[in-house]
């Protein structure tokens, strides 16, 4: 358990989510990654819940400032509309009291709580099986509030009601969210002829997708088509840890081993069957998601249901935006994404993320992912007119 606690403490720092997180794990005894004055209070929280791990982290910038801004009017909850929150977190409870009672009363019904008091902003999350759940939740809270802040700003700008405080914050944190332009690294060249080669290329591409900040480590998926097999990352796998997390799924459907494959296997299949592409990468680049959610049709009858009902052909430059939920339900992205991405370098799913394809290997889709995110960030800041 201590190994897992230390591992996820390190991952939080590596992912830029927090600088000095406090992580604990509980089997028969509570273990921490480090000592902290808050540990006794948090131990009380753990003792009063049926959980096996907990993370308490003061988010790194820009998340910390964004959370403080979103909490400035002391909301009971923050309600991002991105796919991750809508599907998995529902809403984000907030309190300004850092006490066992205040934390418990929120964590008893949700996966996280944001504590914003005068001194600090903290996020607490937990797991029932592994600290990984707490890590994923923390990551989702940071991602979704980031997206919420910037998408609201864009909405305000388009409505002509820009909030000065929000704009000031945007200018202040802009250097943090505008990394120097990077070229995509060179990845293994294809075509790949064996599952082993394809898997090795996927591991490399997944790691670089995370390194480039194009997806939080837990999210996204990646696949490669061989002659009669699709190799795809497993559900809930971390793109930076894909070794032994790749499922080879026969294209003829002759085996069910793909039951542990990514929830987007059907979408990947459809894309391969209707095109000549050989690789697919799916990430959650933040500004892609932010722009996808910014629609200026204020009186649209589908407003509030854009993620499933948007019926307008929307594009960012040449990249289409489609509605669709995770998976294979009647409103699943497996129905909307494959036709949209055909003959294009990528397609965006509303409030969710970006899919890109390659004809030979992962160089093309990774470069596409990076270029489209850079394009979206440029468009965003041009439209906002921030000067920082």
């Amino acid at each position, binding site marked *: *358990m201590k*190994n*897992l606690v230390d591992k996820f403490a390190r991952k939080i720092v590596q992912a830029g989510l927090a600088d000095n997180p406090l992580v604990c*794990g*509980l*089997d*028969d005894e509570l273990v921490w990654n480090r000592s902290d004055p808050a540990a006794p209070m948090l131990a009380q929280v753990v003792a*009063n*819940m*049926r*959980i*096996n791990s907990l993370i308490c982290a003061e988010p790194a910038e820009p998340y910390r400032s964004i959370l403080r801004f979103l909490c400035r009017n002391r909301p009971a909850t923050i309600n991002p509309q991105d796919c991750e929150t*809508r*599907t*998995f977190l*529902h809403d984000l409870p907030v309190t300004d009291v850092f006490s066992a009672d205040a934390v418990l009363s929120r*964590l*008893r*019904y*949700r*996966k996280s709580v944001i504590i914003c008091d005068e001194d600090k902003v903290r996020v607490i999350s937990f*797991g*029932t*099986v*592994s600290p*990984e*759940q707490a890590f*994923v939740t923390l990551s989702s809270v940071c991602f979704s509030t980031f997206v919420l802040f910037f998408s609201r700003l864009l909405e305000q700008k388009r409505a002509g009601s820009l909030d000065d405080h929000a704009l000031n914050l945007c200018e202040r944190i802009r250097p943090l969210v505008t990394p120097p332009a990077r070229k995509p690294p060179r990845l293994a060249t294809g075509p790949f002829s064996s599952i082993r080669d394809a898997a090795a290329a996927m591991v490399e591409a997944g790691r670089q997708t995370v390194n480039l900040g194009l997806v939080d480590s837990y999210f996204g998926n990646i696949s490669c088509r061989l002659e009669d097999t699709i190799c795809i990352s*497993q*559900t*809930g*796998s971390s793109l930076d840890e894909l070794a032994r*997390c790749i499922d080879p*799924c026969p294209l003829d*459907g*002759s*085996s*069910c*081993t*793909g*039951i*542990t*494959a*990514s*929830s987007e*296997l*059907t979408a990947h*299949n459809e894309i391969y069957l209707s095109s000549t592409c050989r690789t697919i990468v799916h990430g959650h680049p933040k500004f892609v998601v932010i722009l996808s959610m910014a629609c200026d049709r204020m009186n649209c009858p589908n407003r509030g249901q854009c993620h499933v009902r948007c019926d307008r052909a929307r594009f960012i430059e040449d990249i289409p935006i489609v509605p669709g*939920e*995770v*998976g*294979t*339900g009647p*409103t*699943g992205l497996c129905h909307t994404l494959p036709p949209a991405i055909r003959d294009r370098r990528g397609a965006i799913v509303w409030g969710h993320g970006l899919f890109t394809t390659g004809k030979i290997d992962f160089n093309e889709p990774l470069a596409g992912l990076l270029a489209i995110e850079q394009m979206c960030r440029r468009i965003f800041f041009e439209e906002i007119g921030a000067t920082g």
Partner: protein
Amino acid sequence: MTGWCGKILRIDLDSSATDILRPDPVRYEKFIGGKGLAGSFLRDRITLAWDDPAAPLLIMTGPLVGTAAPTSGRTTIMSRSPLTGTVTDCSVGGRLGFHLKRAGWDGVLITGRAANPCGIVIDNETIKLVDAVELWGADTATVFQRLQKRDNSVATIGPAAENGVSYASLMVDRHHAAGRGGIGRCFGAKNIKYLVVRGSGRVSVHDKAELTAAREEILRLAAASPVLMGEHGIARFGTGALYDLMDARRMMPTDNFRRTRFAAAPGLGAVAYAKRFQPKQHGCMGCHIRCKKVTGHKNRTAMPEFETMSHFTALIGNTDPDLVVRANDLCNRLGMDTISAAATLACYRELEGEIDLAPSLLALLEQIGTGSTRLGRELGEGARAFARKQGRPELSMDVKGQELPAYDPRGAYGMSLAYATSTRGGCHLRAYPISHEILRKPVATDRFTFSGKARIIKISEDLNAVVDSLTACKFIFFAAGPEEYARAFSAVTGMTITAQDLLEAGERIYYQERLMNAANGFDDRDDDLPARFFKEPGSGSAPGTPPVDRAAFLEARRKYYRIRGLDAQGRPTPEKTRQLGLA
């Protein structure tokens, strides 16, 4: 009170009298329904012999049954097990709970023994005990043919229960089995052949809009789950979808658990069945996943579930899928548990020196179910009793006397601990660690370590105890969680309850079962696996999946006892009993 009906039907078969129990609302709050509520009625009579007429037989629905809460149409059947002597309960699908609830009953408590074979007919408020002499001896298909209508639910035993098979099942609405622990034999002991229920009322819901919102959250999560709704998921292929995966993970119990890889497995998965039998989708009331599959031809019979597919092939050395389907159908007609039947035959096969069972499989099952031969009657007592009688007790692959399902514990250490601690003996569903050790939900855990597993198993047992009390389907919890179901529960009942409140109730419900087992003398000697798993390797890449480390297993069990609030021998403590409100 919304969600619950507030009434339990009590039937005394000795006197043919019925009356109505109106449990205190606190009892509902503490035990919720289904498994929890049934246990609360069983506990003070759990030391009675399973076939003592005063021993209660309980059929319980949950507060979500009959509402729009997804996958919440299940029913708990509980009593003391003839197979193990432990408490045993089965969560069964079909329409039984739905009709019972709409008839205005949260459950039925049956005591006594009818003088002659009888049927119980519940038509809303009207209760009849009817003569069933004519159907005694009939197989379940005949009973369904005779009694099943579009607007009712039928539960029946088959000849196996009447003939003393210790793992006799209760079949519900043709295709759904309350399979494990010999619950069917409890019906037989009371001379109950069948139960017919028709309900036409409505289940009251506190806040329909809130329930709709909770439902949408749950459906969204289900749609995002590859295991449930994915291209290879159980909605499409049934639980048989797990077959290829278990083969790929080298976890398929083969030749009575002597190996974990079956060479013929690659051609015997769910895809092969789909091509061969073209099954149709079928589901329980209130479920959109519809994981049950039935054969495509006119006289539809249930397709085998994963456990049956695995045990009727790898465990007994059979490579013929047609034979699996026929064996499954025969077990259902005779009314006996496929897992225990196959595992007992695997034990017999090992004793006999790995004979080819395929040619005689159906005949042997017939002999067990009808008790027509001495061998059949001996096999009908279960693997433990059979192996002991043959002087080879070590060849029975069971825990507490219940035969093990189709996940080899050498390939998933959480599963090994969960098998051992299960209150009803060898069962994969009490904690179902396959969820995280194999299916990666809610996140993946390392299947070859005990690190962290003691608490995970305890929390999972609590969670599944709640699920069986609500009474929802465990499969939906591959996707949704107590968070979403707490919202549904609150919407239905009007009680404000959190995910953690549900888990606390689950802890109470599970501890109650430990209390019942302890009252019958069960302790750490029973929370154990067959020695084979600690001595013999499985079949992975050379040198094979290693045996489970005995010391590490015992250390994990020691941790589990501490976390669960048990003493060093695995017995409940007065302090914990008081703390959970069970004193």
